């Protein structure tokens, strides 16, 4: 096993843990940034330097946009419907299952750890999209899900060419733009990032 890949996978899992457990918006964005920046090394193979630089700059711009939206609204978030600890357990289980699946396949093109990282990413993203009740977690889930889809390609033996790397960077950036817009627009209605209706004001009740 490649030690760099293992270390990068550990960083990816750490980022996912921060993203899932935190109720502070800026910490969630930091977790997403950590995960996405470490992902190329965890997914196996390192892209060309120019492509890596483009990808890194695009990801930094994307997380900056999310951070900007948070600073203009609020950093405080409520817990998810499932709960951060349960989601973290789900992600850990997904990582183990993915790694075991990769190890059980005799094809040498399918590495265990990158497959585990990709499945863990997909589980975390799915959890955030399904159980998140605020626009920031939906944005984080969307960015992680795109990353998971990209990471699964090499994890299943495919080749990541520069076109995929560039398309991934552009996809993350445009998703962050749309998510930041969604966060700011939603916050204009109810002054936080939650998607639920405003609580009823009983003073006007008759």
């Amino acid at each position, binding site marked *: 096993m490649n030690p760099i890949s293992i270390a990068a996978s550990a960083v990816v899992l750490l980022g996912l843990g921060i993203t899932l457990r935190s109720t502070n918006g800026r910490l969630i964005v930091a977790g997403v940034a950590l995960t996405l920046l470490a992902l190329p090394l965890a997914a196996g193979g390192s892209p060309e330097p*120019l492509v890596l630089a483009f990808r890194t700059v695009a990801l930094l711009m994307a997380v900056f946009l999310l951070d900007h939206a948070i600073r203009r609204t609020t950093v405080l978030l409520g817990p998810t419907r499932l709960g951060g600890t349960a989601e973290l357990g789900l992600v850990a289980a997904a990582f183990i299952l993915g790694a075991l699946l990769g190890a059980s396949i005799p094809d040498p093109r399918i590495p265990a750890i990158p497959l585990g990282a990709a499945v863990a990413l*997909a589980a975390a*993203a799915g959890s955030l*999209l399904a159980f998140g009740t605020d*626009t920031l977690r*939906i944005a984080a*889930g*969307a960015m992680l*899900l*795109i990353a*998971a*889809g*990209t990471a*699964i*390609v090499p*994890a*299943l*033996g*495919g*080749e990541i*060419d*520069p*076109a*995929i790397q*560039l*398309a*991934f960077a*552009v*996809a993350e950036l*445009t*998703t962050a*733009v*749309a*998510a930041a*817009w*969604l966060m700011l*627009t*939603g916050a*204009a*209605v*109810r002054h936080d990032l939650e*998607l*639920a*209706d*405003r609580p009823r004001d009983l003073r006007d009740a008759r």
Partner: protein
Amino acid sequence: MALFVFFLSAAVGGGGVVALRERPKPAAAIGLLATAACLLAAVAMPEVASLDVGSTTLHADPYIRLFLVAAALALLVSQVVGLAHGWQRELPLATLGALGLVGVALTVGTPAAAMLAVAAAGTFVVIASLERAISMPAVRAAASGFRLAVVAGFMGLVAMAITGEDPIFVSPDVLAGATLLMAAAVAIRVGAIPVHAPVARLIERARTAALPLLAAWVPAAFAVVALGWTSTIVALGTTTPIVVVIMAFGVLTIAVASAVVLIDDDLVRWLGYGVIADGGFVLLALAGDSAAAISSGLAWLVCFALARSIMACVVLGFQGAFDARRTRELEGWLRRTPLLGVALLAALVVAFGLPGTLSWQVRLDLAQGALGAPLGLALVAIALLPLVPVARLGWTGIRPLGDVVAAGGSERFVLPARTVATTDASPTATQQEIVATPPEPTPTLVEPASEPPIGGSAMGSAPDAPGAPGAGSDTLWGAADEQPATEATTLSSSGRAARAARKASQPTIVSQAGSDATSLPDEDAASPVPGSTPRGPSRRASALVGMRRAGTAASASAGPLRHALRDLPAIWALDRTLLASLATLVLALVGLAFATDLVGLGAAAGLGAASTPAP
């Protein structure tokens, strides 16, 4: 070169729109110009074009060229109609971003990169979905649309990753799983039943001007990418039994969505469920398991997106002219907006086809390929059910004018010079009043522009009865910014009862001489603040006054044609209903050219060829 110009126009235009985001008019103009440049680049594109970007080559074939031409034109027209009838500030940026990303998705050679690009387009266009008056249900619908775009993209990526670059080594079971996953992704994206709820909610809540982008072109591009991937599976010649499941969902979607529109007279819902029903044909193309089915699906996708774009522009025309979107409110609409009627008729031909046209033939081929000849014909007949509400709409249109339509705009062309000739050119004519809307009388607010008003307030002196010259509801977008030195803007309570009761939050500008009534687009409908610098309504009212004064002075010595040429910007201002209808009609005619295969869409999609081109 043309491909490069296409992407450059989208990128530069998008950057310009972002840079001028705080100035809506220049941003809208840049958006229109950049979209027009994309259209010209797509038209000028040769049959086969390529562009090298580093080690990657973007490659366009005739089908992709036609897709980009149709998409750019439809999105340009939807922007023009949106500008006339209800502007959405984010629409130019979303349009240009989507055009660029869809262009990349269709031309890039790597399937996974194409799927990433088209998923990115799906998330990005969500920014055009919300209206200015935002509510939490609308935000939730937008978030739901955002979610489904990402989830569909992920499922498509996983399907591609499972099969890899050499699907010939993959077992049939794995191929079946990947095919099912891709079909599920397409079903989510086009809103097939039973996963139609997010798309239906998004269509109902979104701005109508954004619907061609949100519900037609980006989902169509997603389906093109999915069909391109499916063609590689079909080329293996491996038939999987899973296609029966996909086929069943396609048939269910067509039948149920076509039947649902019978019980609702809301035209936006009619449009939304039509989109969903059309998505069923895309599923049939995926399940067809043959090159012919994929070719039919590719041809159908362009017809589908064009037809729904035209219909969205027609519905937007109804909303803009009459502020109505229900059939029962539109009594006599055909008398006031006959061009919209022609455009709607053309849209029906593009969407449903006539025997002998391409759109009819591909629908029939897809249905018969899935169900066999008699059942396929029955399915196509069921898919014609949405024509019943259209017939009801047509019957409503030829009836005598109802209150809503009578109080609304019309497509009648009024030259600015003629309008000016009826206007009093005395100094009191420079006073403008903004008629705030009933139902409740509101106090008169005087907004000094640069100096105190001359004369008193003019309460309710607006003889703008339907049929009177200039009684149409017009906007002053594009009018000159010249402003008289002495001017007052008065907010009073008067106006047409039926229309005003419906448009409770949109003020109407009426000249004191009573010859024109001007309603403002939503983006500019903010209430003027007393004592503030004249912006929005008052600036436009001032521009109208300046235009009239110039026209009155000149009308004594020049003919109407000369006035018309000189006052071209004012024509846009005064006849927005007509111009929006004309733009819709142009799109409808182009749609007919596609649907009747005059442009060679069938051959470009591979119909009649031995093998299907894989976009």
